[in-house]
């Protein structure tokens, strides 16, 4: 952040300088709002959930370990807000629950002739990543978009580091298989 380090900002907020929280909100409103959009698909609901996530983070700020990065802590909390909403709406499809299913489902594959005619580019790749099951999509986004460490992803998603590696690998494979028809195992 530009002028003060986050730990210092958090310390000052805890001392009563509530307006400084606005700096953290401005810094992270984009990623949090977009997380909610990915989870709900609804702009109004996403704005409300993003609000709830930041308010809940403010209320729990005393529990934030100032030796760690603020963003992973905030993201974990925001993810829980999204999960609570999905559960309440009855739309919780066991999101993020680990399973031992096969790496690529049959319906994720395309036949080779179609794949040959459907070359991968950035836009198509992004669209396909967005359509992935949340547990794979969020792992990819945390790793490659937000540069979380493996440990931070594990902690955010509530899984082990080896499971994170598995999800990243599976996620990439699933997107790839949409375009090469599974010709590259």
């Amino acid at each position, binding site marked *: *952040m*530009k002028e003060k*380090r986050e*730990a*210092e900002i958090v*310390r000052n*907020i*805890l*001392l*009563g*300088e*509530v*307006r400084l*929280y*606005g700096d953290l*909100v*401005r810094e992270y*409103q*984009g*990623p*949090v*709002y*977009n997380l909610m*959009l990915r989870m709900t698909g609804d*702009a109004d609901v996403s*704005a409300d959930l*993003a*609000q709830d996530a*930041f*308010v809940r983070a*403010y209320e729990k*700020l005393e529990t934030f370990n100032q*030796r*760690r*990065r603020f963003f992973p802590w905030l993201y974990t909390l925001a993810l829980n807000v999204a999960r609570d909403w999905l559960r309440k709406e009855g739309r919780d499809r066991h999101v993020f629950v680990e399973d031992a299913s096969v790496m690529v489902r049959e319906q994720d594959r395309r036949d080779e002739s179609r794949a040959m005619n459907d070359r*991968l*580019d*950035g*836009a198509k*790749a*992004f669209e396909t*990543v*967005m359509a992935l099951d949340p547990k794979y999509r969020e792992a*990819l*986004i945390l790793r*490659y*978009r937000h*540069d979380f*460490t*493996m*440990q931070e992803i594990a902690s955010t998603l509530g899984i082990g580091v080896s499971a994170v590696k598995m999800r990243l690998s599976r996620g*990439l494979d699933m*997107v*790839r298989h949409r*375009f*090469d028809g599974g*010709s*590259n195992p």
Partner: protein
Amino acid sequence: MTEDRNKTHMEDIIIHAVQTGPEAEPPADLVARIMSRLEPKRPPLLTRLRLWLLRPRVLTVRPITAIPAMTLAAALLALVLVTSNNPMDGGGPSLATVRFVLHDTDMSARRVSVIGSFNNWRADRSVMWYSPDAQAWILEAQLPPGDHEYLFLVNGKQLVPDPNAPMTSDDGFGNRNSIVFVNGEHEQTL
């Protein structure tokens, strides 16, 4: 071989797409809506005192000079700032806030930790975070007075000594550890 190259190429496209794909702008009034729901915190006097005492104050900033990196693609520079916290009257030994800064302009490293005698050389206890503004990996640690040996662990496998550390020591295995000296007089001693 060609298949492997093709797979790698496709994965590069996917990763780049994740890094740069479009995102929606949050509503313009989102910050205001959030801030309107918050009340200032009113911590107890003891909490206020503790937070105030823990507030780091940087006393000295050393100039940074570029050096060629031997082990990384981009130049990595390191700098350690030592600041002090006044001990409470009658309290134990004062701790100093030591700020480790590892410059990495291109963010060529994916993960950097400080490992040292103060955290039993455990990388998971002192993971640095990357500041795009400072173009550096940063970590603050509270250290007691004395000598502390340390190294930067880059990407979980490369040990990088602090090129600016005036003191080093032989670890007995052919490597040099950097040393930060924290004294009780609250002076920069690097």
